[in-house]
């Protein structure tokens, strides 16, 4: 009898203590804009978890590939042939492009216009996803040891994928464009109308135009505006306008955008580790 009383009391004490602890943590987190009090704990967890994630991710990839291979079957051979052809074509174009690039750089130097190309990128493979159902985060197999830093832009196949939000020694977390917390300064490539592209947590993005009377049509391309000092380089594809205009206020206008990157099957990304005058490339 006495023991039962003891354990009930212990439970109540623990409940009160841990409730106070979690409310305290939430409050501390809300008061600190640079991250919560658990960041240090997360850093330690990341150090230990990173290698495990890398190993497990390497195992998970072929399994995913196997399942998608089953459904795609013979289409793969055609795909390889088509890609080889495309590759040869692109290689030829690249030589031409390098020449034009050099010319462009020379002309820019003459005219005193700052360089906008010359991104240095690091390739990384996606080894995992964030633990929460309320975040759209992927884990990549490169970390601070490979020169990855917080806020570096991340490119996917076809356009901007997101940005680095947390870094461990051997892994890093990338907040995808489709996450609700993601917002990127953008413009329409057709007429340069400015706005922001916001994540919705689902598969599509939302382009919020600054000018409510802006002309926007289905199929219009949206790219990063890359204002000076911004996080992202200019002109990186974000997506294509698909929906009719969403309801906006008198001050802004919103349209639905299909992301340029297919986030459901993202397996490799390029992290922009440097940009500016060094002129290197991947």
């Amino acid at each position, binding site marked *: 009898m006495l023991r039962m009383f003891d354990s009930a009391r212990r439970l109540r004490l623990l409940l009160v203590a*841990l409730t106070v602890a*979690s409310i305290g*943590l939430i409050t501390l987190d809300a008061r600190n804009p640079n991250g919560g009090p*658990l960041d240090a704990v997360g850093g330690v967890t990341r150090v230990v978890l990173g290698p495990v*994630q890398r190993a497990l991710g390497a195992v998970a990839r072929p399994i995913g590939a196997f399942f998608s291979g089953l459904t795609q079957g013979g289409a793969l051979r055609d795909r390889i042939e088509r890609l080889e052809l495309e590759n040869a074509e692109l290689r030829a174009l690249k030589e031409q492009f390098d020449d034009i690039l050099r010319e462009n750089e020379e002309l820019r130097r003459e005219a005193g216009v700052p360089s906008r190309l010359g991104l240095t990128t690091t390739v990384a493979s996606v080894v*995992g996803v964030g633990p929460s159902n*309320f975040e759209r985060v992927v884990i990549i197999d490169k970390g601070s040891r490979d020169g990855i830093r917080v806020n570096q832009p991340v490119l996917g196949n076809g356009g901007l994928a997101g940005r680095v939000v947390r870094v461990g020694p051997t892994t890093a977390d990338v907040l995808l464009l489709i996450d609700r917390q993601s917002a990127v300064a953008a413009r329409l490539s057709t007429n340069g109308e400015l706005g922001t592209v916001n994540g919705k947590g689902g598969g599509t993005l939302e382009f919020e135009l600054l000018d409510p009377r802006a002309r926007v049509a289905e199929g219009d391309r949206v790219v990063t505006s890359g204002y000076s000092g911004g996080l992202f380089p200019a002109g990186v594809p974000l997506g294509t306008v698909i929906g009719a205009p969403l309801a906006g206020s008198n001050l802004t206008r919103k349209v639905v955008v299909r992301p340029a990157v297919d986030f459901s099957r993202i397996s490799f990304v390029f992290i922009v580790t440097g940009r500016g005058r060094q002129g290197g490339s991947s």
Partner: protein
Amino acid sequence: MTLRRVGIIAGALFIGLALQTAFLGRFAILGAKPEVLLLIVVAVAMTEGPTVGLVTGFAAGLMTDSLTDLPDGLTAFVFMAAGLAVGTIRPMFQRPSAWLPAAMVGATTALALALAALLGALLGVFAGTFLRTLVRIILAAVYGMVLTPFLYPLLTRAMVRQRQVLGSVVVRR
């Protein structure tokens, strides 16, 4: 509560987190991932009772919070409540049933994520559309139920060597 058992629970949480982030999370259904850590909390609370369930929930929540941008302490609070609730209502089910663990995991995942979404909305961090959040919560719950037959017996078997085992359900004392 022996040191050995603390080790088992801590190890299970760590492996669960790795599994969640690097393996199962990659096979998301319409964006919904299983809540492996919550499944572990349910298994622990079912075998060890409300007190251990409460502490395990808190620890599992802290691990999740430390790795996300969500407000620190939110998941800790929600998982803690889940561990306490499961441990408390466990004695109400006298007859062992193979469905009980799966039903418990499903219900707990749904309720815990709903509570997290509600608290998140109150704190102004994730104001998603109601429908999308609801669909994701239901899918995550179903995902957890599907995983239960694979993961749950491993966990309970690891924890209860010397206890009386009835089917896949463990009776306390």
